[in-house]
């Protein structure tokens, strides 16, 4: 009887062991090279060298998170390069970088031996390489997250940390008219932009800082009121013909700009979208940008990436970027600024009508199947590559 019972228990144990998920049965292993593709071209990792564009700045911050072990007081990474999980072993500026695992990392050696980063890869190529399993990790545009997931790509999104805003440029004809700016701000259908253009990856933005960072974003309205926009428009004797510029290489900006133009048209405001070339960006196919062409715009779309989770730091960075564009002269926030000070500063900028936040977008990562132990990054985190390992059974 005891023997029979033992046999039954052994059989049940064997069945349970066999029925258990295989990956849960695997242990993390060291080794392998994690293939990473990014769209930006980082020309220098020197903190003293400023990034040419926000995309490079964001990528640089991602790399910094791998190379430095802690953040500074302003929330950005700083300290001794190579103190982080990885060290730079090979560097081709703007093209390729190889980071090798730091054996002396404070939190322990990463599982992967190295991380090979290909720079300057287009979004289409990145998604394609993910689908073809030619890369392990890549950032993909938010609006392509759902189609990529439909095609079998593992998708992970961060907290929204990139702001897409409309900035009325200083000196544009007639744009000083606060009524016109107000009408445009009210007619923008942010929900439609999030739901249709961003395919629900993001959230409408009423303020300059996201809710997870400032905690006051809910105080800024994101409501659309085409009716009130029309009323304001009817109070304007002659609405100027405005041109809204967007980065001609950015499909997302183009779609958003065209949608804003439609919203404005429905409100009776003449606003046309037009692609403009940005430094370091190549015009996308189908745009009407020609080399050397000077395009006059009255407003333009701007993407702003939060480089620090601290609201004061991010807001200060935003003001430094947008202020000269919109002609906003504001005193920088002191380090001792309270959350209320940050809010009032943010409110002041929003009320000026020169900057119209549209949406907050998350960072969307595509991850190959062999990347294991991927954890969705927290609000203040960047690439959590130090904790992932590669499953050799699902090799490329």
């Amino acid at each position, binding site marked *: 009887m005891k023997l029979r019972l033992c046999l039954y228990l052994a059989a049940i144990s064997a069945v349970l062991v066999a029925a258990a998920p295989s990956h849960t049965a695997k242990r993390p292993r060291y080794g392998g090279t994690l293939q990473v593709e990014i769209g930006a071209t980082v020309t220098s990792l020197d903190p003293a060298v400023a990034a040419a564009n926000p995309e490079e700045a964001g990528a640089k911050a991602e790399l910094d998170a791998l190379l430095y072990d802690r953040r500074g007081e302003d929330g950005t990474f700083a300290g001794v390069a190579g103190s982080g999980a990885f060290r730079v072993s090979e560097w081709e500026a703007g093209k390729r970088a190889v980071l090798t695992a730091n054996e002396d990392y404070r939190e322990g050696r990463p599982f992967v031996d190295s991380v090979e980063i290909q720079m300057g890869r287009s979004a289409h190529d990145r998604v394609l390489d993910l689908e073809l399993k030619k890369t392990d990790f890549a950032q993909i545009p938010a609006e392509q997250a759902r189609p990529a997931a439909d095609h079998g790509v593992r998708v992970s999104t961060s907290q929204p940390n990139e702001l897409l805003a409309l900035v009325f440029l200083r000196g544009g004809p007639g744009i000083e008219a606060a009524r016109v700016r107000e009408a445009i701000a009210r007619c923008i259908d942010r929900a*439609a932009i999030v739901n*249709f253009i961003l395919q*629900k990856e993001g959230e409408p933005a009423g303020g300059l800082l996201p809710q997870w960072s400032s905690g006051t974003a809910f105080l800024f309205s994101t409501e659309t009121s085409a009716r009130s926009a029309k009323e304001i428009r009817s109070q304007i004797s002659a609405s100027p013909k405005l041109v809204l510029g967007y980065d001609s290489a950015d499909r997302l900006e183009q779609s958003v700009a*065209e949608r804003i133009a*439609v919203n404005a048209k429905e409100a009776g405001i003449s606003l046309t979208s037009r692609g403009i070339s940005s430094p370091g960006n190549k015009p996308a196919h189908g745009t009407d940008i020609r080399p050397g062409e000077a395009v006059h715009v009255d407003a333009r779309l701007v993407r702003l990436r939060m480089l620090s989770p601290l609201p004061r730091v991010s807001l200060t960075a935003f003001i430094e970027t947008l202020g000269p564009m919109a002609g906003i002269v504001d005193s920088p926030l002191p380090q001792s600024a309270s959350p209320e000070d940050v809010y009032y500063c943010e409110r002041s900028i929003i009320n000026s009508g020169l900057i119209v936040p549209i949406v907050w977008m998350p960072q969307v990562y595509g991850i190959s199947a062999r990347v294991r132990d991927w954890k969705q990054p927290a609000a203040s985190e960047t690439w959590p590559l130090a904790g992932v390992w590669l499953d050799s059974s699902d090799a490329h």
Partner: protein
Amino acid sequence: MTFRSKLFVNFMLALLLSVALVTAGVTVATRRAFDELNRQHTDALVEQFQREFDRRGHDVLHRVQGIAEAEPTVRMAIDLSRPNADISVYVNDAHGVAQSHQLDFLDFVGTDGSIISSAEWSARFGYKMEWVTQKEDWASRGSFLMRLDTQEGPALALLAVAAVRVGDKDLYVVGGERLGKEFLASLVLPENMRALLYLNLDPAFQPVNLIDSAGSVAEAERFEPIIERERAHPSALTEKINWTFDAASAEIFHAIPKLGRQNELLGVLLIGNSQRTVVTLERHILWLAIGVAAIGILFGLFLSWWAAARVTLPVRRLAAGAREVSDGNWNTRVAVRGTDEIGQLAQSFNRMTQELVDQRERLIQAERVAAWREVARRLAHELKNPLFPLQTTVENLQRASTQNPDQFEEVFRESTGILLAEIENLKIIVGRFSDFAKMPQPELGPVDLNDIVRNVVKLFEAQFCAVGRPPITPELHLGENLPTIQADTTLLHRAIENLILNAMDAMPAGGILMMRTAQNNGNVDFEISDTGVGLTREEADRIFTPYYTTKQHGTGLGLAIVQAIVADHNGRITVESEMGVGTAFHLELPVKPPHHPNQTTPVVVAQEVEKKEEA
């Protein structure tokens, strides 16, 4: 202008008029034929274009229906029919489907009219396209024109709508092609034709809305009248536009209004047919006609000349004959054959000249008889005067011999003296007649008429102042630098003597005898006038007739001799007289008497004319 020239000009005018009429007729007929052909050609092309337009509409309809019946669209319709369906996943679908079906416009529209996905204006998702939800059988509606708002502005589209019904909800597929330069470029048009399209998208005519396959149209404002007429009353019309002054630059445009679903004018299709080929062909034909006409005119010129010469030859022969007759050659005959009017005229002419010759002969005979009678009368008159004394003297001798023999000797001496004197008179009379009969031919030589006049006057100076008669005062007005003439000095001397004697006889009571010489158009004039009793008209007419005299004792030969001398010098003498005032004789003597032409026969004259014509 000669009759021949007039006839030639008339022939030419008639020919030119005929050629011009024929050329104009051919040109007009050709132009009408070409216009008709051109119209038929254009009508056929317009009809062909209309068929092509309809075919494109059917094609659009089939493609839209194909999209509606495709599996993804049906799946979309099923998904959207579910409660709380997420339509955002379809927001970008229209673009790819439109590309794969080669449509310029494609919209997926929900059952409430909201745009789910738009190919031409992707940012318009969520907005309403309410006209789609109106109650209409889209399947039977077919394709239609419609004005659509696009990102670049309003556009004209050839649309079709297909509905996919799932449960009680519809998914509308609205697709179509843009009516623009690409549409025009896809049309197959023959050479010299082009298609323009006016997009009636604005309240007033806008030149920029007129396009062709290359884009905007040059000088689009020239089409404004056509477009405005179409806007006022949409109907097919034809209009010609001359781009330059050259007719070959003209184009005939057939305007076809294109209406929308509500019969509103959305576009005007303009089929242009260049007239360059037709005009070039017409010009070619015109130049050919002109060339043929020119050749015809040249040929007609030659024919007219020949015909005019042939027709007018008898007339010119008649004219030459008439000139011969007028020159005194009455024996002239015209050699014209035929029985037509000209022939009859020539025969009449010949009969007339024959009659003239006969009458002249008869007149000469009559004058000859009259002259002989006058001579006989003069002879009888002249001879009667001496014969009567002779008879009386002889009778006195006879009487004296019988009755007074003693006085016979005395009578005989007186009688014989009288007889001898009368016989001498008879001899003188006979000598005068003999002299007139023996007028010599002039021996020409250089003569100064003034010298002759002075010499003759010098001879008569004594008689002008003779005692016992009233004086006659000669007045000489002799021209200076008078040319010498070819004449016979003796004969002229005699003629002037006779004229002076005649004037002295005309002035028994004395008077003034004026003589004047002068040069006149290759002639030398000599005029002698007296202040005598003058002549009657009848006397003046007969004054040069031989043996005619108004004087009691004249022979009537003096002035006849003068006329004969003047005539022998190819001169001319005339007389003017007025009773009680005086008489003046006027002589015209040629400086060089012309050579007497050979006398020709009538036949020779006609032959000479004919020879000239043949030359």
